[in-house]
């Protein structure tokens, strides 16, 4: 991961190695908690990866809503004089619950689980998962890949024709 300066300072990149490590940690959480779905995203709602058995969840939409949900509570926490953001959010449903927690300030983990699974267990295993994820993210800070390396000349050259193809009506 590399938080780049410039723009609004919110961009980051994820290497192949780091992606594998994150996925492994989330798989571990999925098997321990039996959660339906565990989704890792950045704080702006870009989905990173998902684990679990639910395949019918629209991941980009879920992460966009979760990021909005979280961002709204950050503003609320400021209004009541909190200096730190709220660490987690919990939504209780009839059949399904959603637990959201921030990870290293710039990421989110979303856990979707059946109501017969104890919240306490979700919280304990999620806390351990977050500790592991934060270590991976900390190590990855040393990586130096820039987003401009991804957008090379060929990419810029072919972008125009792909846009024309997609937007051709």
């Amino acid at each position, binding site marked *: 991961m590399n938080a780049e300066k410039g*723009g609004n*300072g919110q*961009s980051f*990149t994820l290497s*192949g190695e780091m*992606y594998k490590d994150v996925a492994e940690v989330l798989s571990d959480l999925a098997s321990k908690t039996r959660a339906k779905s565990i989704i890792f995203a950045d704080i702006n709602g870009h*989905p990173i990866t998902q684990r679990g058995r639910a395949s019918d969840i629209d991941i980009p939409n879920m992460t966009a809503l979760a990021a909005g949900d979280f961002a709204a509570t950050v503003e609320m926490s400021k209004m009541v004089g909190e200096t730190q953001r709220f660490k987690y959010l919990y939504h209780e449903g009839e059949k399904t619950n959603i637990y959201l927690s921030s990870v290293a300030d710039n990421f989110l983990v979303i856990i979707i689980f059946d109501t017969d699974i104890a919240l306490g267990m979700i919280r304990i295993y999620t806390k351990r998962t977050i500790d592991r994820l934060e270590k991976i993210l900390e190590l990855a800070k040393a990586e130096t890949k820039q987003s401009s390396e991804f957008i090379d000349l060929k990419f810029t050259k072919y972008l125009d024709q792909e846009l*024309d193809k*997609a937007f051709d009506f």
Partner: protein
Amino acid sequence: MYINWALNEINLKVVYYGPGLSGKTTNLIYIHKKLDPSLRGELITLSTKEDRTLFFDFMQLEIGKINGKVPKFNLYTVPGQVYYANSRKIILNGADGIVFVADSQKERIDENLDTLLDLENNLIEIGTSLEKFPWVLQYNKRDLPSAASLDVLDKKLNFLGVPSFESVAHKGVGVFPTLKELIKNIIAHIRVPA
């Protein structure tokens, strides 16, 4: 922006900004309607009972592989009403580019300008500004009789000379050219930041 080298994916955030009822949601609805479903996700709208945007609208779009790489664009709108200033700030966070949807009607020029200044203030808060950030202008509602001339709109709103487009969003006029230009600007900005 988020880049996943393992999956060769780049995720970019595009925000439609502008005063209330200028046509931000209408842009997204048209894009959703026209694009092949394989290229876009479902459109989420978080609206009030009166169908005004309460928090944001969201839709993801893909344009296929480019040289083996997959760009994904996350399109958001902000609520235009003055009352939802905090929500606009939230949605703007992490944006990579902005379409400013202005209402062309003469009586709404001041509201456009107020919203543009609101955008500038919010950009400054996240460490950038209208000069440094990729954005384009869309003059919407060109079909209305009270629409101001392009000359007047340019003088009032386009003082930085950004790319501008005339549109009638509900008919789709100008919707895709605006988005295409913004995407090109975002990519150029990543290669060579202002």
